[in-house]
């Protein structure tokens, strides 16, 4: 980085860790800092104006578009990205044949359901949707079909037409219900 641009230094709290940002330009979005400075490329950029939801992260428990947050203003917030999601009840068994037990332990029930129900095609919208669905189900464990649609209507998917994504959310809700 040249001296002409960027000499900000600050610390962000991301996925439970303090991450130091050095030599940054003050105009950088949280999305840019996550992707280009902190080696967390899971959050995706696809519209830069909060319309598509691909960059969704949790900030103090709220789902936000990280492209609309200036990174330097996120100091002090508790940020969770797709890389930091953890399953609250990891005991749920996988039914997937091609997801090995080893990997299965590393992904959440929501992530597993997206794979098993066909909610992933190109996968570019997927991380944002995964975060949005975690956020929904944390706040509302038993959403109606319409509540599901409304809560993910800020996440655009161009491949699936959403049908398999609805199926994935429904599968998680049913499994969580059964295990309660």
């Amino acid at each position, binding site marked *: 980085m040249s001296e002409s641009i960027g000499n900000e230094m600050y610390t962000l709290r991301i996925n439970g860790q303090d991450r130091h940002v050095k030599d940054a330009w003050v105009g950088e979005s949280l999305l840019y800092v996550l992707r280009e400075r902190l080696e967390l490329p899971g959050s995706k950029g696809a519209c830069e104006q909060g319309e598509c939801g691909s960059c969704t992260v949790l900030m103090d428990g709220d789902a936000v578009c990280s492209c609309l947050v200036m990174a330097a203003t996120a100091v002090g917030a508790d940020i969770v990205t797709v890389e930091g999601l953890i399953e609250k009840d990891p005991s749920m068994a996988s039914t997937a044949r091609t997801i090995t037990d080893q990997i299965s332990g590393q992904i959440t029930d929501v992530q597993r359901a997206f794979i098993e129900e066909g909610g992933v095609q190109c996968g570019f919208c997927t991380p944002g949707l995964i975060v949005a669905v975690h956020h929904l189900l944390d706040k509302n464990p038993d959403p109606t079909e319409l509540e599901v649609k409304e809560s993910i209507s800020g996440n655009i998917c161009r491949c699936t*037409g959403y049908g398999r994504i609805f199926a994935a959310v429904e599968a998680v809700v049913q499994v969580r219900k059964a295990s309660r």
Partner: protein
Amino acid sequence: MSTVKQDTRLRDILGTSALRPDGVAKVMGSFSFSSDIWAENMLWGATLRSPHPYARIVSIDTTAALLISGVSAVITAQDVPGKATYGLISADQPVFASEFVRYMGEPVAAVAADHPETCRRALAAIIVNYEVLTPVVDPELAMLATTEQIHPDGNLIRHQKIICGDPHISGDITVEGHYTIGMQDQAFLGLEAAMAFPDSGGNGVELHIATQWLHEDRGQIAACLKLPEDNVRLVLGGVGGAFGAREDISLQVHCCLLALRTGRPIKMQYSREESFFGHVHRHPAKIWMKHHASKEGKIVKVESRMMFDGGAYTSTSPAVLINGITHTQGPYQCDNAVVDGYAVRTNNPPCGAMRGFGVVQACFAHESQMDKLAQACGLSPVEVRLINAMHTGDKLITGQVMESVAPVERCIRETDAIPMPEPLAANANVLELPGGSGRTADRQNIVRGIGWGVSMKNLMYSEGFDDFATARCTLSNGIASLKFATAEVGQGFVTLAPQIARSVLGVDDVVLETSDTQIGSAGSTSASRQTWMSGGAVDGACRLVRERLFEHVGKLHNIDPIRLMIEHTDVIDTIGTFRISVAEATQGITLSETFEHHHRKTEDLDANGQGNCHVAFAFVAHRAVVDVDIELGLVKVVQIATAQDVGRVLNPLSAIGQIEGGIAQGLGLAVMEEIIMDNGRVKNPSFTDYLLPTALDAPSVVAIMIEEPEPQAPLGAKGIGEPPCISVTPAIVAAIRAATGKALSRVPVRPQDICL
């Protein structure tokens, strides 16, 4: 036998809903898209674009940009060492504009710098003097000889007519209409992005790129760089959707040029706004169509004139035009036709491939016409379509005989049998009403409508193109490795290819090697062709390896190889009792074969549009149910019922994903998606202003897959990517017509088209 069946079901072979091998990485966020690649010592690249649709470049001054700290290079047309232009069919598009800019957003220069913000400042510091010219934006005017020719190749990109049977015959009944199709954007989520690594000597480059066709890109890039093709290596970067928009060159040449100039890795990625200018769109079209029919509703003749606005450069316009005119008849019998088609150059954005490729436009016209015909003959939309439904063996208006399985009648009947949705409940949530929560519909004004659309779509490339795909299969120690250059863009070829290998070879472990140019071409991931073409190549390579395996086992165990077969995961002797697992039989040996799958040859059309120009066809029917607020002009698509001719279902989960995804894109074209032009200027290059279907816009989809295996297809399966998005658009518009009584001759249907 039941044991075998049980075991078969548990393996991820053909016909099962095998899961995506890249699924885990994609849900974790660790899958590497082309925009996720990072390199030590890399620079960012960015493109300067024309603010004018048509202008002469008087001068370009890059001095100030080069003085900015952190800027490593600024390049313009004069820095292109090889061919100054590129293009899929005709190399008529400049790498950088030099004399003229011919559309808003045309690249003029590119920079490399240490930070995206430095790039932005450098672009702002480049001084380009333009002599602004009056753009030619109406294709009807553009094609006249008296109009200024905006390109040395002229304004008429292609003209083709079709004359079939008796051009003068008429019928008891005629219906006609003028139809307009707006400019749709593919709007893939993963923006254009690439990383170019220069070779240390500067004589070569490795480009990691999200594309649909690695080898075609390589040929065009190498020509512009003036490098041998072997010195330009392409590796598929993770692709975030494509839908046709990645078939043309966008940032490929710019990125490589900057890498070679600076000697450092260059990362480029477009913003959403830039992406609207950086790739081709679906052709806007104007179509006049007239049907002549008997009083019973049987089509006697179809006449049409089609005008496709190709924008400033050729891209795939000639092929899109041919697809449009050769699908004038739709999936219906028709003995006589007079069709005239034009693809014309204007100062609008270049248009090219998008899912449905010319057939979307033709289908909106012919399906609107079928409803007019039904009305004129006193038939229902279903009856008129059944009376005219095409069958295998029918002669098309090009003279080509329909050799594909053509279950048009079944598609219609099975769609018709799908139960209707419940009526709108009196206490329905506001989100279920037209307009949703934003502009609340008045329940008193909501009217339900039902409409139909049926379509035919050619599969693969046409007009004599030697289309092929290459794959290599290597079997060793019970593990199969597959190598191909096929672009996985989300469609699921990475799921299908291992399913094929498991089915043919009796292995469970399949490794996919990197998709790059270190093997022969796979052709493009487009035209609904990869399951057929690359699937055929993988199948062929695996079968060759299986022959070698049988020879090896036969020799070792003194059995005639012809008696051997694969059962489950074993090689067995069909006559004796010998049995050995594939894993054991391949211990310590390596069997490797490469196979090229070519489809059958096709021909050019003659002057009268006659010739066997297409390879094969697929069919689909759609029935749409909509709720319309007739006062506010708002539409809610309630249900899409569909029966699609798929040949054979190879992966049910992938197949339904293609069907539902295609329907959403067709819905977009029907009621919301349009790039709005104003005298050559794009007015809405953002996701705020270019509206895409969201989860709340998604209709309930009830889909039936009709399995009648296609004898020509290597796996019996037809391509299923494009048909879902084609006839759903006219079906939705027909449903809105039924609800409103409005003529609605353009898509997308806008609120003012309904309520004013």
